[in-house]
């Protein structure tokens, strides 16, 4: 029992201290904040179609990305090329569940699916209701820290807390990817850019008015 308590204490301390342990985030100071401040930045994807470009390791791919929120509160993300061939079709549930409806053979690899899943989870902001582990501040920016199964999501606003500067997906030690969502029109960002820090991978989305 004592051993269990010791393990629990150690684990809890690690979880609480982890953002502070990261070299990237170690200079951040604790501050006060409310999760409701983030809600206004959560994209209201009823149905949105984006012209999409993907640059990965020197290769360029383009297509159309459809994001649709369904009545059962799930969100579907379907990526196809301009001629209509579907590359993948993913479902994101409010509780964090994830389902692959279809994916082409060339992309059907665990690291690819996992990377795309976590990138889209960062911009969908479905997990913010779980609440931040902590609120931090650094260089005049506010960091809303949301713990993930592995690592953290950071939603970073300016000091007024009215502008979302960027979102970051971080491992325990470093930033993995960042997303910038700009020009919200009726709650939907017009431009989204997801760029990875650990390898050359950029997803660019520009909304298409139909």
């Amino acid at each position, binding site marked *: 029992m004592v051993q269990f308590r010791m393990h629990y204490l150690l684990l809890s301390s690690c979880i609480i201290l982890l953002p502070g342990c990261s070299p990237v985030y170690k200079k951040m100071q604790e501050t006060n904040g409310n999760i409701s401040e983030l809600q206004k930045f959560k994209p209201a994807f009823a*149905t949105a*179609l984006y*012209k999409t*470009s993907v640059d990965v390791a020197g290769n*360029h791919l*383009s297509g*159309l990305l*459809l994001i*649709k929120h*369904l009545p059962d509160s799930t969100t*579907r993300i*379907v990526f*196809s*090329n*301009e*001629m*209509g*061939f*579907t590359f993948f*079709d993913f479902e994101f549930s409010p509780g964090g569940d994830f389902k692959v*409806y*279809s994916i*082409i*053979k060339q992309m059907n690899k665990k690291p690819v699916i996992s990377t795309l899943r976590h990138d889209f989870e960062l911009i969908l902001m479905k997990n913010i209701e779980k609440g931040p582990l902590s609120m931090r501040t650094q260089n005049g920016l506010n960091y809303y820290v949301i713990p993930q199964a592995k690592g953290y999501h950071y939603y970073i606003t300016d000091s007024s807390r009215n502008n979302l500067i960027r979102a970051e997906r971080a491992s325990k030690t470093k930033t993995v990817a960042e997303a910038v969502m700009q020009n919200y029109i009726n709650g939907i960002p017009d431009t989204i850019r997801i760029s990875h820090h650990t390898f050359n991978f950029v997803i660019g989305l520009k909304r*298409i*008015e*139909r």
Partner: protein
Amino acid sequence: MRRMYLLFGLLIACYASMAQYAGYAPITDLPKFKVEFSTATQKIVSIKSDFVQEKNLSMLSEKIVSKGKFWFKRESRVRMEYSHPFTYLMILNKDKVFIKDGQKENKVSTKSNKMFQQINRIMIDCMQGTALNNRDFSTRIFENKNAGLVELTPLTKELKELLKSIVIIVDKKDFSVISIDMLEVSGDNTLLKFSNKEMNGTISDALFTIK
């Protein structure tokens, strides 16, 4: 009694095949259709037309509609210019593909890209009238008074992963393509409809140049 069951079974099979495509019946004289199709399509040297593309996402009840201009020139050259709601250019020239997506230009060899290889083959086969000879597909043909319907079902593993079937509708007057419907395994489909067709007009080779 066995004859009755056989007859009943045949009737159901006939009804099923007829009912598959509303307004079309299985072709009665297949050899004649094939000869007419081959003869007519051999005369098609070039096509210029408008197109409308509808991507139907069945489970999401969503339709993505795009429009543009289409050019075909024998042998094996296709240019598709999407203009709405996005701009995108694709040139197929024999075994090469050129893509212009915004400011980005990309050249792909169909030899190294299976998806473009299949798109290239399907498009060229439909336009040149060689779709019936493609051994990667099994073929069923239906007709009505004005049009022929060619259903291509993939036979190879690679194609089966991409497509459930392709349905091509051709005008019986000149056997030019009216529409191409690509049905995916998921139930989604992409329908390309051609209109304002100009057959065998002069089309510059420069439109298909890949530098």
